């Protein structure tokens, strides 16, 4: 617990934290202010959709780059090698740093949402769902960033790798799906699209949050049953379980990598 508190204070002191806070506040206030200027407020509007798109685009990049940079820096300054000699389980070390980072980011995002709510009017449920979406993206992105930062040999490699992952999982993902699924028989295309959601946590979270905020026919009649299910308690639990499993797997893989390096060094 002591180590966790030290790590927590270290992440809170970083200048990036203030940049994050400023960025989220500006994004939320600008888009929210735009929505407020308009007369109709439905549950799922283009303002909410823009918020989802911007959060889904920028947050994974920021979080992955920051975590990968942190771990790359540890490696470059040889502190990672030193850490592997400590009488501390590697998973515990990874988990401690990951959870401290997550707690810091959760604090920053929550503060940004709370401050933005002074000038932006949205239903409490919408705020809560957007906040949950942000926390989910941070948790998933930080796990990916941790893994990439641990396997990267230096900061530059870690940053390049996380940027590459962001390009594939966010920017190129629709292009990849369009290219692959267009070749499949028409009858299984929708099922393939649903299956592909579980390969990309960012997309799974986006569709889940859209399902919660919007009507079931948001993605057309073909997905009405699926979106209805996703909006329910079982769907939400399945999404949560999937994201948590991937995060734990990433952290375990990072710990395994560090342990392997420790063995190599001692040999």
């Amino acid at each position, binding site marked *: 617990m002591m180590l966790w508190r030290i790590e927590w*204070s270290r992440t809170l002191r970083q200048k990036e934290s203030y940049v994050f806070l400023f960025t989220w506040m500006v994004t939320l206030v600008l888009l929210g202010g735009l929505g407020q200027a308009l007369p109709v407020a439905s549950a799922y509007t283009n303002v909410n959709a823009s918020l989802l798109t911007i959060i889904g*685009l920028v947050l994974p990049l920021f979080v992955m780059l920051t975590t990968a940079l942190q771990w790359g820096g540890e490696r470059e300054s040889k502190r990672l090698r030193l850490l592997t000699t400590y009488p501390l389980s590697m998973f515990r070390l990874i988990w401690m740093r990951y959870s401290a980072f997550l707690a810091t980011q959760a604090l920053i995002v929550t503060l940004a949402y709370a401050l933005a709510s*002074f000038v932006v009017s949205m239903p409490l449920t919408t705020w809560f769902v957007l906040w949950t979406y942000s926390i989910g993206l941070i948790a998933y992105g930080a796990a990916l960033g941790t893994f990439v930062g641990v396997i990267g040999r230096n900061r530059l490699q870690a940053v390049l790798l996380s940027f590459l992952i962001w390009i594939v999982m966010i920017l190129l993902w*629709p292009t990849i799906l369009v290219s692959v699924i267009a070749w499949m028989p028409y009858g299984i295309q929708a099922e393939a699209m649903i299956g592909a959601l579980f390969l990309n946590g960012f997309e799974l979270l986006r569709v889940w949050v859209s399902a919660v905020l919007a009507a079931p026919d948001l993605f057309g009649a*073909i997905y009405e049953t699926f979106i209805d299910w996703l909006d329910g308690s079982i769907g939400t639990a399945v999404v949560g379980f999937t994201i948590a499993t991937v995060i734990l797997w990433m952290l375990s893989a990072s710990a395994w990598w560090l342990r392997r390096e420790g063995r190599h060094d001692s040999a």
Partner: protein
Amino acid sequence: MRRLSWLLALWFFSPIAVQADTEPVLLEEPIVIQSNETFNGAGKRFISCERPAFQLEGIGAVLENVEIEQCERTTVPAVLVEGLGHQVIDARIEAAGTGIAVSDSHGVRLIRPNVTGTGRGEGISVHNSEATVIKGAIIDHARDGIYIEDGSGHELVRPLVMNSRYGIHLMFPTDVSITSPILHHNETGAMVMGTERVSIENGQIHDQTGATGMGLMLFEAVETTVRANAIHGNRVGIYAEKSEWTAIHHNGVNGNDIALRLQRATGMTLAGNDLTHNRYPVISFKAADNVITGNRWGGLTLDLTEDGQSEIPYRADPYLFLLADSYEAFELLYGAPGLTVLERALRSPDEVTLIDTAPLVTNFKFTWQGTVGATVLSGLLMLLWRFGRKQDDYL
């Protein structure tokens, strides 16, 4: 004693007489109202099965204040109107077939008709007639609320149609004026096909349901005017296909999945509409030679000259529509950040893109929304941050 006997007899028989007045009248033959005759039903209820309950013929017949109930599986209309200048006033109909059928008529006035159907027949149907006036119609659960085929010069004022296939269905009439319609929870609010000079104004067209869920559909309609309507909560707000010289102006089309869907629509004028708060403001495909200016789209705007119009034009790229139209499964990609980028990268040529050269500027508006909860939460988080920083590093 004799007087008392008379009074007792009067008391004894009078309730029976009242009872007879309120009992429904079963009609085996239609009541035919001829020229210049008036039939005032005084609220009496009539039941008809295989024939219409009332038939208006000749010139200037009036039917007023009646309640009509049709037997199940009746296919004929409850009220049949043919001729010149007839009036049906305050008719309340529970219809299995069509409520009121007007055919080969001129200047017929239907005032406050109220039709509740079973979804099998039309609420009101007007065939091959001229200058029909329908005021204050209330229609629920019909196939088409108001169906008008051929003819011209019809006037619909304040029709309220709900839970039907089409709220208003126009097939080939000309010069039709629809004022203040309220059309909701139908499959399509108003279907306008093969018409000329139809105007729809000051209406509330919202929450159409089902796979189509369209507010207004214009198909091969010429010179249609859609003005000052509130169109919201539909799957598609206004759909125009193969329609020419349509003027869509000063409408509020908000909160729909797609506000405007234009396909092979030419010579249109789109001006002064508020198209914000929709999932997609417009999907345009092979729509050309249109005048589009001064609409509010909710996109990126920049007003350097401070005239309320943006110097950045609004472009509606059909990429997403074309993609989902070919492969329905890709609808799941709507709103994906990567697709937004892809849309920017793969820009469609200008001839298939709808461009508003001077969209209205969307202003930011901030009003204080602070609450005690948000203030307390912000304060606590700042304190947590402040005290969380105070620790020593361990390496």
